[in-house]
């Protein structure tokens, strides 16, 4: 589908690269309200547990981390960092994401049409190797049978399958929305417009901190932000987009923005000034 959009090009690895959906999250705008997490769970039929206090086995495709600069008042600062799946392209963006290359049953795949890393729930047999491979801890295992309060079952999205116990799941960039939008565009014989495919978290963010679109499409805002060019002008006011753990060659598709130096440095270990023990920002789950 991506190849028909007119901006595809041939990658070095021989795969025709169509769209490359990605996200830019402005950390200076994020208030940590958690609306993105709630929207994500509702949109994607993520089950809840009766007791959600143990965050280590709670499924949160979108998780907001709370970062602190570790300083005392009045210099104390906090930053909220939403972390979806990064949909890594791997080295040279060739599609060898950390998780895709290790899955023994090909239950997770990289789409060269969209750049989205998918998860095939009915094929996953729950070995959890992909979870070990993901440095962002964006993959979650269904430790329990999916359960929804009786009256909530009516609210489940018919576009997203509910996952069974014993398999891994993760953020899909609301791929069902892409499918729905593409079906319509194909039927009407036109290209997909930027606003037609937006993730639930993007639309739910009250601060407008999340921008989503095709990183390969010059008309999309994410492309403009990442390349800092909009109608010939710089738009970032000196801020430079960064990605988490860039030095690992995971090539994530989620970019972050912040004017705060310590936040940028928190994104990558190599940017630290001194030993990590002294300068590590304290983190926490929201």
């Amino acid at each position: 589908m991506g190849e028909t959009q007119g901006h595809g090009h041939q990658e070095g690895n021989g795969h025709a690269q169509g769209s490359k959906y990605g996200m830019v999250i402005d950390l200076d705008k994020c208030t940590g309200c958690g609306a993105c997490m709630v929207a994500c769970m509702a949109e994607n039929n993520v089950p809840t547990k009766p007791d959600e206090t143990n965050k280590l086995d709670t499924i949160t495709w979108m998780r907001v981390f709370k970062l602190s600069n570790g300083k005392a008042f009045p210099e104390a600062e906090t930053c909220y960092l939403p972390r979806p799946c990064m949909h890594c392209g791997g080295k040279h963006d060739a599609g060898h994401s950390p998780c895709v290359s290790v899955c023994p049953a090909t239950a997770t795949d990289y789409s060269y049409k969209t750049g989205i890393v998918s998860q095939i729930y009915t094929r996953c047999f729950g070995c959890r190797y992909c979870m070990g491979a993901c440095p962002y801890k964006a993959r979650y295992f269904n430790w329990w049978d999916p359960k929804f309060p009786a009256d909530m079952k009516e609210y489940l999205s018919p576009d997203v399958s509910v996952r069974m116990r014993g398999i891994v799941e993760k953020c899909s960039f609301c791929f069902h929305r892409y499918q729905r939008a593409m079906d319509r565009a194909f039927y009407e014989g036109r290209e997909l417009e930027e606003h037609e495919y937006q993730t639930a978290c993007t639309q739910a963010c009250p601060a407008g901190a999340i921008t989503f679109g095709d990183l390969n499409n010059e008309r999309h805002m994410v492309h403009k932000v990442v390349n800092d060019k909009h109608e010939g002008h710089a738009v970032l006011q000196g801020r430079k987009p960064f990605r988490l753990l860039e030095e690992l060659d995971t090539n994530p598709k989620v970019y972050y923005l912040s004017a705060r130096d310590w936040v940028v440095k928190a994104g990558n270990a190599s940017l630290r000034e001194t030993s990590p023990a002294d300068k590590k920002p304290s983190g926490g789950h929201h």
Partner: protein
Amino acid sequence: MEAAYQKLVRLESQLHPEGVQRAPLWQFVLWLGFFGTVLLWGVYAMFLCWFKGLNQTNMNDYYGFALWIWADLAVIAVGGGAFFTGLLRYVIGKDPLKYIINYAVLIGFICYSSALLILAIDIGQPLRGWFIFWHANVHSMLTEVAFCLSCYFGVLCIEYIPLVLENRKLDEIPFFHHTAHNFHEVMAIFAATGAFLSFFHQGSLGGVAGVLFGRPFAYRPEFYIWPTTFFLFTWSAAACGPCFTILVTKITEAITRKKLVKDNVVELLAKIAGWMLLTYSIAKIADTLYWGFVMLPKHGLQITDFYTNASLIYTKLGGVPWILLIEILCSVIPALILVSKKGRQSKPALVVAVLLGSMCAMINRWVMVLQVMAAPIMTFDQFALYFPSWQELATTVLPVAYGVILISLSHRYLPVFPQERELNPV
């Protein structure tokens, strides 16, 4: 009652190998009863995990791999004595090892069948286990593990079958007698096949961690498609596996209060294991130095990143990476003992060396599973603690009980130790 028991004893004794003495039947039944109870406890936990799911464990999203994967890797490593002793005996031609090869095969059989059982419990959807073969991803190290492990287990079965057929009563049946004989005739082919398969599955188990480029604690440089851990795992299995074979032999000798294998046989295997350990420890130290001072800085990390701000259990003791040091010492010390003739000939030193040698592989596998999971990667991420649930512990003890039972049965009814009769005349 007494007469019936005596009759049972007489009948049962006819199953013993000729010319050897075995413990009284009641003692043997009590022994089996104890380990059988432990086994049942493990089986109960296993069924809990199968029916209720992996929520019965204390694994979580930070520790997707935990105690079971460690146990898996550890038993496969120490079970490496089977393939390496087979290679030495049948392919390289170290003839004296024919007196210990049966036991090495038996230990290997137990280790590998245990590993397969643990894997069957460890997957979230056990009924889909076959997907790893059906939807195989050729890029995944785990696929390579699954194929080579299954094939090698088949080889181990073929190697173990003739021993079973050599049971005194079974051997009286001409078909079984000839089958066992013919198996022995072609055993070199299976030994070579086993060594080939083991090279790949031991290696690919090392590769499982080594290819994780998102996990700098585990990630290693690659030769062609295999990271250095691929070769280190094979190497350490070949070095530590024979140590474990000797250790279990010594434990069996202590329990049965008999000498079962002559010293020259044990010393030959110990000597080879010693040189393997020595070369392995050099390779391991070189690999660690390259990882710590070349690879990590390339990724913007320092070796101290993995030994600070984390739990004492995994990493830090007064700033010293103690697990790393113990791991290296557990290869260097036994290597130095075993390469020296004096060390090999001293029984206490030999036992200490093979114990440390077995621990070497086990600690290494622990590090390459648990520490890989434990080390936070994102600078703002937290360290999470993991302690296994009783279900995990019970299912990990299960293979130990199963191993003891199978060894006991094999020792009682099969001619596992060809030198036993000569060393213990009745």
